[in-house]
């Protein structure tokens, strides 16, 4: 890049016609304060401090960017609405997050009015890099209050910042605060309450070609309309530099201006190839000057950080510590969350038993107990794992370790076209894809994040284990291989490896097709280490769990009820006489019990259980689900599956482990689990009534397990992908892609095995 020769000092004039909206309009709604700042500046902690628990999280329309808003009561009792914008280094957007930040601050974001005030949060410990955003923000010409955060930490680290000098330079209030201790917040609230005028842009150099182009565009901008309250020079710079052709900003200006902007861009490209770097060069010149005057370092660079980093990113210790930490997370998801999940399970069934008898026997009781309560249970079961994972992730993120973990893992993850940030979501998916997919929020690149979401369900989650255990137990002989390996263990290991291989292949393919694009810039800040605030961490955990229950939970509940209906209706005519017999047997048993004939009562009860299981089996086999199982039999027969497995595949959409209990019900065994010997026996000896041959072979079992590794059979995953991608397109793509892959792989296994004479 050559150096611009024709530099001229430009001090864009403050916004003209600032806030022309009539006073009456302003009184109609609360004052809106947008909080802006770079990543890791302590913005979210400050937002939490200002709003307390009065916040809500939603998405901006049409994008996956989160909109966090809340209310804050100021010193004199007035309440303002506060908007926590995503962290960004610059107002020139490169990601959907940054487009939202720019659009909100320029007042062109749909459903969000132009903020009355922008609260810019700057981390006083690394001011220089953050002043870039500050320069751009001040140039917009809208009222700004600067919160100089972490002033206490900066003093401890030997950095003096002259807040008064910055205040004079920006022409905007600069309030030193500490989001951690809460000092300075009172002054900040007071500053937010006062009428703040437009700031004074810092004088900086700007090379002539860009400056002249911006002046041309500025002269063409209309004096009324959406952008009228802003500095025309800044709007012109944004139009020229933001690369957009038909985005929200370009659409906010007349056609003539749009045409001129595009013409100027191509002229500049031809004449001054490096024109886009004029803005950063000019800004950083001014920033260097400002930093020289406003900050003083009295102590050398933080040596604490150096010492910690020397261990945590050490060639040997770094990966070892990381693996140990991952083991703890994994353990927590697998083991520590289990007692909580069991407790929830117990609570849900206890609730069913408690409420059940209060309702009339029949469809209503069944709907409430087996449909609604079971559905709520399916949602709540995920909460412990989500809470544990986000507890660890927010601890890692707030302490600064998450960035180091990504630093260590980046090289490895790059071999599948992802970045180091994808490691934790994928690892978590071995416990459950739901928290794993939610954890992809830490991946800033959109394509990487989508790829990670789409491959996460290939990791063999804990819900697949019961299925593997049942089939391996029933069909894989317990013998040793090569003298030291145990065959069932080896098969289980291969299933996990198969999932990982599928993920690698799909990631590779996606990165070359649907999610292809310009190679993103993997620049990641390695923030200073900080002691995480417990309050912030717990708020994150609460937010994540709450959002899951609210957004994905409703879908899961609805699907649960639909699945219940499909498995319960229509009622079979055969059931009536059986139910009559059941009542008679129960009556006899209780009479025997009353007479004290223990043996007869026990026999009666056993017969009753047998009848109940038969009723459940008959009802399921003849329900819509049962009929659907028969309906899909031709499609799954080439994989070695009969219609009974078809029913199990369909019902496992509620959750994969439901496959086990469905097989038990189909075979009149009631609620047996994967360790049930009778269920294993039944599967081994099941015969096809038409041919008299064995229905299932070990080859079929392998084919079925391969199907379970690859197929997307989990409605909760679909619901959470729908929520995280904010679209139905991606979850549908995922279901089709995974199930097609599963079918092809099982077909290859079963037919290939038969050709080799293994069937």
């Amino acid at each position, binding site marked *: *890049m050559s*150096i611009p020769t024709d530099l001229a000092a430009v001090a864009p004039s403050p916004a003209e016609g600032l806030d022309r909206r009539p006073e009456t309009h302003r009184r109609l709604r609360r004052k809106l304060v947008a909080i802006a700042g770079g990543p890791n500046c302590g913005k979210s902690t400050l937002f939490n401090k200002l709003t307390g628990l009065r916040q809500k999280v939603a998405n901006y329309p049409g994008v996956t960017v989160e909109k966090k808003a809340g209310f804050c009561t100021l010193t004199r009792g007035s309440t303002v609405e506060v908007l926590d914008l995503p962290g960004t*280094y*610059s107002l*020139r957007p*490169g990601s959907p997050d940054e487009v939202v930040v720019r659009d909100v601050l320029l007042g062109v974001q749909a459903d969000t009015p132009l903020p009355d005030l922008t609260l810019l949060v700057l981390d006083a*410990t*690394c*001011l*220089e*890099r953050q002043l*870039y955003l500050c320069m751009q923000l001040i140039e917009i010409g809208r009222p700004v209050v600067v919160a100089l955060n972490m002033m206490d930490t900066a003093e401890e680290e030997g950095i003096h910042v002259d807040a008064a000098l910055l205040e004079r330079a920006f022409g905007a209030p600069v309030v030193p605060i500490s989001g951690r201790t809460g000092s300075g917040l009172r002054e900040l609230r007071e500053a937010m309450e006062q009428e703040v005028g437009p700031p004074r842009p810092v004088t900086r150099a700007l090379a002539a070609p860009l400056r002249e182009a911006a002046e041309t565009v500025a002269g063409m901008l209309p004096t009324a309309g959406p952008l009228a309250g802003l500095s025309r020079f800044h709007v012109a710079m944004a139009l020229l*530099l933001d*690369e957009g052709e038909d985005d929200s900003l370009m659409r906010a200006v007349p056609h003539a201006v749009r045409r001129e902007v595009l013409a100027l861009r191509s002229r500049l490209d031809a004449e001054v190839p490096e024109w*886009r*770097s004029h803005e*950063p*060069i000019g800004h*950083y010149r001014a920033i260097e000057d400002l930093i020289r005057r406003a900050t003083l370092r009295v102590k050398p660079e933080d040596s604490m950080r150096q010492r910690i*980093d020397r261990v945590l*990113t*050490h*060639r*040997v210790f*770094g*990966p070892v510590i990381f693996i140990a930490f991952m083991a703890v997370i994994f353990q927590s998801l697998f083991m520590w969350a289990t007692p909580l999940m069991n407790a929830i399970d117990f609570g849900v069934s206890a609730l069913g038993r408690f409420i059940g008898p209060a309702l009339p026997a029949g469809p209503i009781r069944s709907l409430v107990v087996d449909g609604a309560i079971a559905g709520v249970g399916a949602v709540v079961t995920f909460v412990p794992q989500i809470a544990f994972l986000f507890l660890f992730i927010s601890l890692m993120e707030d302490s600064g370790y998450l*960035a180091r973990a*990504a*630093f*260590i893992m*980046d*090289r*490895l993850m*790059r071999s599948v076209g992802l970045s180091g940030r994808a490691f934790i979501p994928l690892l978590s998916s071995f416990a459950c894809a739901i928290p794993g997919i939610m954890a992809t929020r830490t991946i800033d690149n959109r394509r990487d994040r989508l790829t990670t979401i789409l491959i996460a369900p290939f990791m063999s989650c804990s819900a697949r284990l019961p299925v593997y255990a049942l089939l391996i137990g029933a069909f894989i002989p317990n013998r040793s291989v090569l003298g030291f390996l145990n065959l069932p263990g080896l098969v289980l290991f291969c299933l996990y490896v198969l999932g990982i291989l599928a993920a690698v292949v799909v990631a590779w393919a996606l990165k070359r097709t649907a999610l292809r694009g*310009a*190679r993103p*810039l*993997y*620049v*990641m*800040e*390695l*923030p200073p280490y900080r002691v995480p605030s417990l309050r912030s961490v717990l708020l994150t955990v609460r937010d994540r769990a709450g959002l899951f229950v609210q957004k994905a939970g409703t879908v899961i509940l609805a699907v649960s009820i639909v699945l219940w209906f499909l498995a319960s209706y229509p009622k079979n005519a055969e059931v009536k006489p059986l139910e009559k017999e059941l009542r008679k047997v129960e009556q006899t048993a209780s009479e025997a019990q009353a007479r004290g004939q223990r043996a007869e009562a026990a026999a009666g009860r056993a017969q009753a259980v047998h009848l109940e299981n038969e009723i459940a089996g008959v009802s399921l086999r003849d329900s819509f689900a049962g009929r659907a199982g028969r309906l899909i039999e031709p499609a799954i027969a080439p994989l070695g599956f009969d219609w009974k497995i078809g029913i199990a595949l369909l019902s496992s959409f509620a959750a994969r482990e439901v496959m086990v209990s469905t097989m038990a019900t189909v075979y009149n065994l009631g609620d047996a689990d994967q360790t049930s010997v009778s269920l294993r026996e039944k599967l081994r000896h099941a015969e096809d009534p038409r041919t008299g041959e064995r229905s299932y072979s070990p080859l079929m079992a392998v084919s079925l397990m391969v199907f379970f590794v690859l197929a997307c059979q989990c409605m909760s995953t679909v619901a959470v992908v729908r929520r995280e991608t904010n679209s139905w397109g991606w979850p549908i793509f995922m279901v089709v892609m995974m199930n097609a892959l599963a079918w092809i792989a099982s077909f290859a296994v079963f037919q290939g095995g038969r050709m080799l004479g293994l069937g």
Partner: protein
Amino acid sequence: MTPRGTACKKTRTLAELAPGARAVVRKVSGEPELLRRLMELGFVPGTQITLVRRAPMGDPIELRLRGTHFSIRTSEADRIDVDPD
């Protein structure tokens, strides 16, 4: 920026620096989007950069510039020409 009197010293890319070495950015090249992002983060000509360390597998690298630490892949660091400081 005035040309520096470093003609005798060899210009290298940022990726070639040894851990602990300091250098000054001379020129950044690449596609406009990548170039702009790097520049906005402060990789403008004349900026002093220290290569702090390499990741355990040799890549990415950790840099310090303008009081901030960044991790960047060597493929990107290769586009930043530097003069020894």
